[in-house]
């Protein structure tokens, strides 16, 4: 039992949890912006996958991983715009378009992977973003060992949460964003451009999800492999719901899911099947939705196309 407790509070597990949470945090923030504007985004998975591929590809071509980060964000942004055009302009069903993007991303990344790198399911190894050590913080006992030495993208994710929170709750843009997602007609009446707000929010959503994918291919690993997001986009979606559509809530959910992820390998050794740990985020989200741990209710106009009239 003592050993088990030691495992639960092991600094290595917490440090790993933070790493596992990072791609989820970016994608979940993306999900929040999109859903807050009233556009359901189940395409986070596909956007992450495209981001992961692009980051690898740009890093491979240029040797500069940070250009990969930019490329991935740009690619995610473009896929976000694609989602936006179909959902907002052509009034297509948002869940259907999201499904199409996920299938498209799965096909496109492997198509390009095989075209450029041959038959194998993985790309060659590319230049990655390396970890950095924070000067003073790394000296603090326990905490230093958890957050003192991490990837820059890990820190960026935490900063992004703070920024997202300020943007959504403390700026007039954020107020308009929430208005558009809750009651587009009213927002329109007072002069908010519903279409433009939604376009920007969904494009931003794509860029953030792409950034999440970046972490997978050029920070956590040094290559892209087929379907490497492995459902993380959907876990991010779960974190959005679990965190009640707020940045800090989603951060908490992502850290918890990351912790579960980090723990599973170690718990397998004591006989807990990994599959049950894998299932946990999804089960908890259903429980949260059902209202057993404080009801999760999303933005009112989420999922409905807005027809000006």
């Amino acid at each position, binding site marked *: 039992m003592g050993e088990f407790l030691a495992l639960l509070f092991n600094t290595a597990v917490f440090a790993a949890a933070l790493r596992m949470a990072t791609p989820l945090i970016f994608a979940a923030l993306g999900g929040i912006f999109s859903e807050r504007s009233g556009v359901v985004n*189940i395409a986070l998975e596909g956007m992450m996958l495209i981001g992961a591929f692009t980051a690898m590809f740009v890093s491979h071509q240029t040797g500069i991983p940070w250009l990969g980060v930019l490329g991935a964000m740009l690619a995610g942004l473009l896929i976000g715009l694609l989602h936006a055009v179909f959902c907002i302009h052509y009034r*297509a069903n948002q*869940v259907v*378009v999201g499904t199409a993007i996920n299938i498209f991303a*799965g096909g496109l990344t492997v198509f390009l992977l095989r075209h450029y790198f041959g038959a194998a399911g993985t790309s060659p190894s590319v230049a990655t973003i390396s970890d950095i050590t924070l000067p003073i913080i790394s000296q603090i006992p326990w905490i230093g060992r958890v957050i003192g030495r991490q990837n820059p993208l890990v820190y960026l994710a935490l900063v992004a949460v703070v920024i997202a929170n300020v943007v959504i709750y403390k700026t007039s843009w954020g107020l308009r964003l929430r208005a558009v997602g809750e009651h587009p007609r009213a927002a329109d009446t007072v002069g908010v451009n519903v279409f433009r707000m939604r376009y920007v929010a969904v494009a931003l959503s794509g860029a953030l999800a792409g950034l999440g994918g970046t972490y997978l291919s050029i920070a956590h690993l040094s290559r892209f492999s087929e379907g490497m997001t492995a459902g993380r986009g959907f876990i991010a979606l779960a974190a959005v719901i679990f965190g009640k559509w707020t940045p800090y809530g989603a951060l908490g959910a992502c850290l918890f899911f990351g912790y579960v992820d980090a723990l599973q390998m170690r718990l397998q050794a004591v006989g807990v099947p990994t599959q049950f740990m894998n299932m946990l985020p999804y089960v908890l989200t259903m429980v949260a939705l059902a*209202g057993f741990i404080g009801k999760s209710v999303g933005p009112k106009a989420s999922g409905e196309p807005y027809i000006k009239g």
Partner: protein
Amino acid sequence: MLSKIKQLRWQEIATPLAAVILALIIGAGFILYVGENPLAAYRILFMESLGSIRNLATTLQRATPLMFTGLAVAFSYRAGLFNIGAEGQLYIGAFAAAWVGFTFTGLPRLVHLPLAIIAGMIGGGLWGAIPGFLKAKLGIHEVINTIMLNFIALYLTDWLATGPFHGGSWVPETARISPTAALTRLYPPTRLSTGLYLALAAAFFAYLVLWKTKQGYELRAVGLNPQAAEYGGINVARNTVIAMAISGALAGLAGTEQILGLHQKFIVRFSADLGFMGVAVALLGKNHPVGVIFAAILFGALQTGSAAMDRLTSVPRELITIIQALIIFFVAAEYLIRRMLRMKEEA
């Protein structure tokens, strides 16, 4: 009157047709990108999927599970529900069918096969009923819950097939099903099985239920306008659960067919998006059983032809996945296509 019906039919077919053509045109761009001739590649795609009876049989074999998942999505759609959980229902149904298949031995075929099929239907049906129940009782939108249940089903069957029911080899799969539970192969050496008949029967069943029974009338009424249906004395909650259960059972049959007809054992993660493709098939088939069958055959043909295209040209077979996704985009954006075809929007 007759010309009006004709016009309506034309409108029904025009959008999906335009979507497929647009997707193939953009697909041609991808073929050019990798330096191949689109016409030559498409010719291979066509010949290798429909050019001979043997190829046609493979196409039908690939189309069979898509008919089921397409029907599953279409059926729920008619009741106003979006079942994006066909993938999960498929896995649960598949495992249930496999379990009956490898657990019981010495049963006569006439008992064993139907038993396995029914188990698959019940497995998928129960898994589908969960989000239906949560929607009916607590008002939770089925989309999120079906997505979550997809992953839960994936990991649950993964655990079952590698843990308590592991077949003993190093491969993550169960033991083989008994031959008495297997569907008969129709055209060896292709793997087309009598599952095709089952799919056609399921389509006929879906049509009968939806358009020829009181139950179906209620389901469609709920789908068109739940408030009005409730006001008219229809129990919306009950119909929501029924619709999701039947939809889940249809998806469960897709898994059942894959196990009893194709793999003859449960293999972890065997599906490769058959459930999600069901969304595409249902959309392309206009959520009508007949349309679903044709859409599934088209997708089956694309998949069959892509293997040969991959072998004979430098075009990766994933081109087909891209084309399938593009088809969904264009069918989903009917508004766009109608405008392109200068069709008047229905009032």
